[in-house]
């Protein structure tokens, strides 16, 4: 974990209400895909926890959805804006459990963390396939970026305006994958949990106080005891989840 000042380099709209922000700063505390950062905003008491979409030495990319006043404030930021950010938060995805052909499923605001994960898996010689779920075609983002990694991408939209009509589970194969990695709204996670036939890792969201394990604001029960979504999570193993 580290606190650092980051400078906004790019802040662009990817789809209605969805933005990509590229920031320059010290990313050395980020240990892997599935972690999040916690961003301090002027005039807001608590920080905004946002998943990491991608990172490299000195560069952090987040893709965020405008869901309230804080993210609305972020969407108006211009290049050069300096932000106080805590990085390296949470326990991300374990790449060692992927097998050769893992299935990555992201729904809406749960799509971004799948990107760095896919990139890392590809660089390890794995063949991940990706399912992206959206409500409708115009909400689509990051599809081309995933394709540029050389992974197979299936899109599902709830209204059928693009790709498979229905939920991500309607686009899920019955078998043929070695592990599940997913992030998205809880009903989606539950549906994937019920349909998936392998082991898996599920990333959860919860209202947080601190984001680094101090306040107990985001504790959930698991089969292996109480876990803090911000600390032992946000990624939980399929076998430990209690719905």
């Amino acid at each position, binding site marked *: *974990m580290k*606190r650092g000042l980051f400078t906004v380099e790019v802040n662009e709209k990817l789809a209605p209400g969805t933005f990509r922000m590229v920031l320059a700063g010290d990313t050395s505390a980020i240990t892997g895909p599935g972690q999040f950062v916690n961003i*301090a905003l002027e005039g*807001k*008491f*608590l*920080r905004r926890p946002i998943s990491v979409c991608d990172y490299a030495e000195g560069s952090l990319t987040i893709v965020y959805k405008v869901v309230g006043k804080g993210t609305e404030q972020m969407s108006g930021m211009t290049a050069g804006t300096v932000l106080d950010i*805590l990085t390296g938060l949470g326990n991300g995805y374990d790449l060692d459990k992927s097998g050769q052909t893992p299935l990555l499923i992201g729904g809406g605001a749960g799509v971004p963390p799948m990107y760095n994960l896919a990139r890392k898996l590809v660089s390890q010689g794995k063949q991940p396939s990706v399912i992206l779920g959206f409500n409708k075609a115009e909400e689509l983002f990051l599809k081309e970026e995933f394709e540029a990694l050389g992974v197979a991408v299936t899109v599902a939209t709830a209204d059928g305006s693009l790709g498979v009509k229905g939920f991500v589970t309607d686009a899920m194969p019955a078998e043929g994958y070695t592990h599940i990695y997913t992030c998205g709204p809880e009903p989606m996670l539950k549906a994937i949990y019920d349909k998936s036939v392998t082991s898996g890792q599920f990333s959860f969201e*919860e*209202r*947080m*106080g*601190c984001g*680094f*394990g*101090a*306040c*107990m*604001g*985001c*504790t*959930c*029960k698991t089969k292996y005891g*109480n876990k803090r979504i911000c*600390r032992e999570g946000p990624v939980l193993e399929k076998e430990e989840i209690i719905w």
Partner: protein
Amino acid sequence: MVKTAVSLSGIQLENPVIPASGTFGFGYEFAEWYDINCLGAISVKGTTREPRFGNPAPRIAETPGGMLNAVGLQNPGIDKVVAEELPRLRQIYSKPILANISGFSMDEFVECCAKADASPHTNIIEVNVSCPNVHHGGMSFGTDPNMVYNVTKSVKAVCHKPVYVKLSPNVTDIVSIAKACKEGGADGLSLINTLMGMRLDIKKRKPILANLTGGLSGPAVFPVAVRMIWQVYEAVNLPIIGMGGVQSAEDVIEMMLAGATAVQVGAANLANPYACKEIIDNLPIVMERLGIQDIKEIIGGAH
């Protein structure tokens, strides 16, 4: 070189800054950010007899100038705190520790305080009769002077270390509660705990917190805390640990001028993991600027 040391009932603190219970866990998380031995003392997570999961999620809601929490005293229980958490904290931290004890019955307060008192790692017993997030416990003890008197007296009978009673602001007359603590034999007072509040989700038309209500903390409550510390200092001759929305070295000085001997920092730790350290680093600078040579001299200085 200015002097920042203060004393709480004979317990020496190198500076008056203490992270508040419930915002600092048992210290380990913050030890990853900085050396926590810079702290004046630590008030550890509120502890009950039985292990508690606490309230269902969501437990946190933001507010203008602060936050609501309804964690509900999640803790591993007094036996585990004494056997595991405090020794683990002591491996990395050598300064005073305040054990923070809550309960749902008189027996529970007495049993937990006695166990906390017997631990070689504790220095002050902070009795929390003011948690607004548990039902039939906590605050229900702290809003009635007779109950407060009884809890204080019973706990004092089993403790050898200084007993500080942590008061709720959710009362009509905090002075009468403070007086009841004094009559019960309290060595000091901690005030204020959080103010009971509520937020609604206007899209869902439902409360944001699963517990419906939560405790308000953060800079929004600072003036309420200063007012109550002022009133209690005027009326009751006991050392006060002041808390409620402290964010800066200036806030520490303001609270001490109102009557606090030491000051706890709560919600600020959650927004900024370095909050306590930054306040401690800044304190001598602000003291120099204000011409304060020895911080002890300003306690109650505004009266």
